[in-house]
């Protein structure tokens, strides 16, 4: 169908059935009016995916949706939301990434892509989406290879990086491994940006869909219902991002990247080290964001500030690491990846960490899950903490899909079970990110109740005072349940707008920035949303996800941290996880 054939720009859903390889456009149902991003992906997964289905079976689906303001001039808003049923957790999963891919979808008027059905011929296919419609071709030539050998060639073949972005899976997704992520192109057409968590790459692999290429040539700009209001909001947000010390040009994120957190968590005694045995890593300063900046400066002979991962981002926190000869080694070493291969594996060599990061990008793997898995494997005697060369060999095993590689590629829980390891840091089957819950109890609460399994992003942000919640909340007192809940609601809203979660650093300190986000959304949609709608929409997103998980069989006992954390004191604070189960259960008790 030609989106221009009616002469009227209208939003549609692209429904792709991989059983018979058909692609058709549908109008967006009125019940989904104003929904986009995580609100829409979670809605469609909730409404269309049987909660008890096998995540890799024919009844499972995977859904993509750009955010409300994605594709507009709103700053730092090129996030694509990906939803499905996670093969790691068995529950609902939303992962999002910064890329031009979703922006191009939005410009084509495609509010969501729903991939369903399953081929029975074991073949992989490439889907091309442009202003003329959606067509398939064989992906046989693109499978079984490193993504850097494949994605740039696909970009060139279909029009070049100025016209095309690519969503793809690597070998891990083709082999339906639970740690497989979904890779998107960055501004240079490199396969570096991931909707990494929860194994959604395996779901796409189970559909036989290797890649989705989007070319938005000839597309119109995303319509904006109230341009004046949108511009007011956009400028407020841009001002907040440009002013705040974390998000401004040459601020913390632009200079040091997210890995600036390594030293901070280490100082706080909350940097999980050697499979969550300790809260401080002796090699922290050698792998932190400051070390990355200094190392690049030494090797390049100049200061290198970070770059935007996606079009329109004014925070620009995506880094690159360079080899001793000045050539680029990998992009991007995020805090979580740096920690996962660094402190959690006891590795303090940035070149080895960069290689592990690169290999995950090459094979299509979630760096958090793989770092956590390697740490569990070291615990199980498969290798020795700190032996970076051996860690690299093990990730190659995953890329070769050897029997050992398949075990590791299915994540920390499977690996722990195979090796008889008790200390497996995870919640609901997804390995734990880079904040120690015994030292940072607020994030432990988020890990426990998140609909996504252990996930730092699901409740990472937001000042309670901005949400109009009681101003006396303390994450360590009895009211922390309310805080944990509202953090998650606010995150659900931000993931719906299409903005990067990192705007929160600025907008929770500069209230006009948050108002600006709401005004941008109202400007695009023609609504009259206020701050009250932030909590309403966030609650709706979470309620959909909680309902899916309930139908999938989750109960309160799934909202628990691993037993060892209640038993083993974590140095240097020597504290255990001591939040009562009843407190955890209160978080979503009234929803």
């Amino acid at each position, binding site marked *: 169908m030609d989106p221009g054939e009616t002469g009227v720009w209208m939003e549609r859903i692209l429904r792709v059935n991989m059983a018979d390889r058909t692609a058709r456009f549908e109008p967006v149902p009125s019940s989904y009016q104003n929904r986009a991003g995580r609100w829409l992906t979670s809605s469609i997964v909730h409404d269309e995916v049987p909660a008890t289905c096998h995540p890799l079976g024919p009844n499972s689906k995977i859904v993509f949706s750009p955010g409300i303001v994605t594709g507009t001039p709103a700053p730092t808003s090129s996030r694509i939301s990906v939803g499905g049923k996670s093969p790691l957790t068995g529950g609902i999963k939303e992962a999002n990434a910064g890329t031009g891919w979703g922006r191009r979808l939005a410009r084509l008027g495609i509010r969501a892509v729903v991939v369903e059905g399953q081929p029975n011929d074991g073949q992989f296919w490439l889907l091309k989406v442009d202003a003329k419609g959606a067509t398939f071709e064989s992906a046989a030539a693109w499978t079984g290879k490193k993504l850097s050998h494949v994605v740039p060639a696909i970009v060139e073949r279909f029009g070049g990086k100025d016209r095309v972005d690519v969503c793809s899976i690597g070998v891990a997704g083709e082999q339906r491994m639970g740690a497989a992520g979904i890779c998107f192109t960055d501004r240079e057409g490199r396969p570096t940006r991931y909707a990494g968590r929860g194994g959604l790459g395996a779901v796409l692999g189970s559909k036989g869909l290797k890649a989705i290429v989007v070319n938005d040539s000839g597309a119109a700009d995303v319509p904006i219902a109230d341009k004046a209001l949108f511009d007011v909001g956009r400028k407020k947000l841009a001002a907040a991002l440009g002013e705040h010390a974390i998000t401004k040009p040459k601020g913390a*994120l632009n200079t*040091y990247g997210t890995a600036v957190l390594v030293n901070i968590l280490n100082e706080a005694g909350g940097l999980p080290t050697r499979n969550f045995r300790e809260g401080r890593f002796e090699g922290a300063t050698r792998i932190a964001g*400051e070390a990355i900046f200094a190392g690049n400066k030494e090797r390049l002979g100049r200061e290198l500030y970070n770059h935007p991962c996606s079009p329109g981002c004014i925070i620009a926190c995506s880094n690159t690491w360079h080899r001793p000869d000045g050539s680029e080694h990998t992009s991007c070493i995020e805090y979580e990846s740096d920690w996962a291969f660094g402190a959690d594996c006891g590795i303090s060599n940035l070149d080895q960490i960069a290689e592990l990061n690169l290999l995950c990008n090459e094979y299509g793997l979630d760096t958090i899950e793989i770092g956590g898995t390697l740490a569990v494997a070291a615990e199980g005697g498969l290798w020795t903490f700190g032996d970076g060369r051996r860690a690299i060999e093990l990730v190659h095993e995953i890329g070769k899909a050897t029997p050992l590689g398949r075990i590791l590629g299915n994540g920390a829980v499977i690996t722990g079970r195979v090796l008889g390891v008790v200390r497996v840091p995870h919640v609901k089957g997804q390995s734990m990110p880079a904040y120690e819950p015994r030292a*940072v109890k607020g994030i432990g609460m988020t890990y426990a109740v998140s609909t996504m399994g252990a996930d730092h992003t699901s409740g990472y942000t937001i000042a309670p005072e901005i949400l109009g919640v009681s101003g006396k909340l303390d994450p360590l007192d009895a009211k922390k349940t309310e*805080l944990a809940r509202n953090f998650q609601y606010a995150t659900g809203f931000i993931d719906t707008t299409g903005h990067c979660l990192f705007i929160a650093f600025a907008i929770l300190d500069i209230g006009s920035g948050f108002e600006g986000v709401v005004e941008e959304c109202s400007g695009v949609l023609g609504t009259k949303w206020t701050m009250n709608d932030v909590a309403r929409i966030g609650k709706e997103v979470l309620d959909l996800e909680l309902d899916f998980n309930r139908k999938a069989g989750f109960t309160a006992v799934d909202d628990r941290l691993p037993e060892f954390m209640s038993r083993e004191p974590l140095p240097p604070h020597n504290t255990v996880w001591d939040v009562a189960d009843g407190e955890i259960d209160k978080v979503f008790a009234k929803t």
Partner: protein
Amino acid sequence: MLHVHLYGKLRRFAADTDPRSESIVDVAYCPGDTVGSVVARLGIAVEELGTNLFVDGRYADLSSPVEDEARLGLFPDDMQLLYKWYFRPKGLSPKGLGPKGLSPKAADR
């Protein structure tokens, strides 16, 4: 003796300013010391500090008391990525954690 670990632009107050190593200043302990008094002795302007201040790994602010042999961790204002509400000291009101996050009378310890 107090052991002050400095990060980012604050490393210039230490002898070793290499960002890949530990920039530590040892400061003589004075009875009654607080984070603020130690910061003042080092000559660091409070405007350069953010909310990510730690005493023995615990979230602190300028009014937090320090004891002999304590480890202080000080991050500048452009590095305060860890949210204050994860670590808010008991009784500290959000108002005291405004944009500057440095209300010396806010702590309730």
